[in-house]
């Protein structure tokens, strides 16, 4: 018999998803589809109740629409980031505009363009929630120069000081630091960190690297820990 992939880990508590979407039909339809995949979905139409649900239900992941009444998706995203490092996926109707970059810069981990298939949404959710990823095998402690990472504990220290990273930022840093000196292409990083097997948006990587640098680099204009290799990608230098 062939090994089977379990869509949902029945033996643990269901994964809770916060869904913020003001269009009632889309919200219901998405909730139905996600519930069909075994997720527990907390629905809301506006930012205020979303923030309330965030503290009451402590969801594992949030899906936000950008166009919301009152506080919009970007502001909500920034509000959530002040309180939690849970993965955030935002939904946008425009993929080729600055919306995506603004959304990512306000703290989101990934995005989907409407209309999307449930299959895609579930794939994004799974990739963001997966703790162990198909990255090269790592030790219990990675130390590269001023950088110190404890993958199992999800801790990162720069020059001895612990830094607060979102899950995706942490994964990105761990991935790069697992092979010091090796250049990772954007594509490879999209595959390893975001779980895109093909043609993800490389802006995801660029914006996350920018956010990561803001947190770990002493001088953002001259990054030493995460370096750009022009025309190829990024690397954590072996001897910084």
């Amino acid at each position, binding site marked *: 018999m062939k090994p089977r992939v379990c869509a949902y880990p029945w033996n643990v508590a269901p994964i809770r998803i916060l869904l913020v979407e003001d269009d009632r*039909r889309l919200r219901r*339809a998405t909730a139905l589809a996600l519930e*069909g995949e075994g997720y527990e979905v907390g629905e809301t139409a506006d930012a205020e109740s979303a923030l309330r649900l965030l503290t009451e239900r402590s969801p594992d992941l949030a899906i936000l629409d950008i166009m919301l009444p009152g506080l919009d998706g970007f502001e909500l995203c920034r509000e959530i980031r002040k309180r939690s490092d849970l993965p955030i996926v935002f*939904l946008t109707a425009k993929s080729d505009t600055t919306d995506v970059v603004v959304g990512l810069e306000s703290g989101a981990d990934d995005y989907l363009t409407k*209309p999307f*298939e449930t299959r895609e949404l579930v794939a994004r959710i799974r990739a963001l929630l997966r703790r162990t990823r198909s990255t090269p095998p790592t030790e219990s402690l990675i130390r590269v120069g001023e950088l110190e990472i404890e993958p199992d504990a999800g801790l990162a220290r720069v020059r001895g000081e612990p830094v607060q990273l979102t899950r995706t930022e942490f994964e990105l840093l761990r991935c790069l630091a697992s092979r010091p000196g090796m250049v990772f292409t954007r594509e490879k990083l999209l595959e390893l960190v975001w779980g895109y097997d093909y043609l993800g948006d490389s802006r995801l990587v660029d914006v996350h690297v920018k956010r990561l640098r803001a947190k770990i680099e002493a001088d953002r204009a001259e990054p030493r820990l995460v370096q750009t290799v022009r025309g190829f990608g990024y690397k954590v230098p072996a001897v910084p």
Partner: protein
Amino acid sequence: MSILRRQSLRTRLTISFVATAAVLVTILSLATFLSVHTLLENQRIRSSTRQTIFTLVFARDVLGSHPGDVQRLASLLQSRGGFESMVTTSSLWYSTELSLTPAEIPAGLRGIVEREGLGYQEIRMGGTRTLVFGSPLPPESTDLYLFYSLEDVDRMLSLLGGALIVIGAAVVATAAALALWIARRILRPLSRVSAAARRVAEGLLDTRVEAVPHDEVGALAASFNEMASAFQEMLQRERRFVGAVSHELRTPLAALQATTEVLATHRGELSPSAREAADLVLEDVSGMRRLVEELLEISALDARESSVRWEPVELRALVRAVLDRRRLDVPIEGPEITTSSDKARLDRIVGNLVDNAFEHGGGRGVRVRIERADGWCSVAVSDEGPGIEVDDLPHIFERFYKTDRSRTRDRGGVGLGLALAKENARVIEGTLEATSVPAEGSTFTLRLPLRDRAEPETP
């Protein structure tokens, strides 16, 4: 005139100006020259006639006091200035100049004198025009001839002619310079307008003509600016509309997509007729989703909002990935080539070409061929399907173009796939062309510039 009409406005204007000036100058110069010529000659004839009569009176006096002494007369005439003279008798002749012989006297004048008359005639003597006056004298068969040189008149006329030619040339040259200057003055704003029109045609819709004179050309430029503004506004309105419509469609479509997918997961629980209905809805929703996505993409391409991400792309691997995602077993021929291009757009183009080969080419004998030529590389997708009719081939990249054959088919037509592929090819500086032999198959060839540079990117 037909040759002239084919020249540039500047050349035409200059030629007309110069021609008019030349004709006018020629007429004026000729008129001046001729009237001065006539005037001077008449004057000379009048004064010569007067002098001749004086001389005749003097000669009659001399011959009256010394009858028969022709020689004396000749030597006395020698002392008078302003003319040369010759006295002839039936056997002898005396002249004041050695070169003067009776042979110089024209027959016509001699005839007048023989009939006892006073007359004159113009002759050419030693290269200069000369007036010869002749008259009989009282002794039998004795005639007096006086020679007045017109050399000074001729010198003056040739001087005048030279001056007129120089002035005429100067006038014509001035006319040419003036014409060129005027042409440039008129045409420079015009060429600015035409350059602006070209830029608008290239898609730079905010182009306007600036700093124009307040004349007819200025009015043209102003009208042009108005037109460009109106055009730009209209286009923007249309684009906003298409964008808004597609945008408004997205959210309900996303809801529809999610709902039908829930239906699909419960497909097994449905009755056979409900299942068929669910399948139909699912199919339509995915078709509509694709259409809206294509509409949005093409409106973004029209608005030239989309950016290009240049990065190294290995063509074979890209084609392989496109085929793998569609779970297609299609042979790929040709070498491995890496060039700098936009991966997402290339993926779109090749994907659309492959989809087209299966949807409209029937999927028979589909193959992909990668080639490299001088500075270029190409990806060609061929099929052995029904091919494209000759009449349809030039229109195959038009949006929603429907061929006669596909019209009869269920919701046939090429939709936006090939139009999108062509637009994307243009954006990544490539070309997309189709060749086809009806009943044998079609080939769509994407040509790309071969380059290895990586564009500067945002770090």
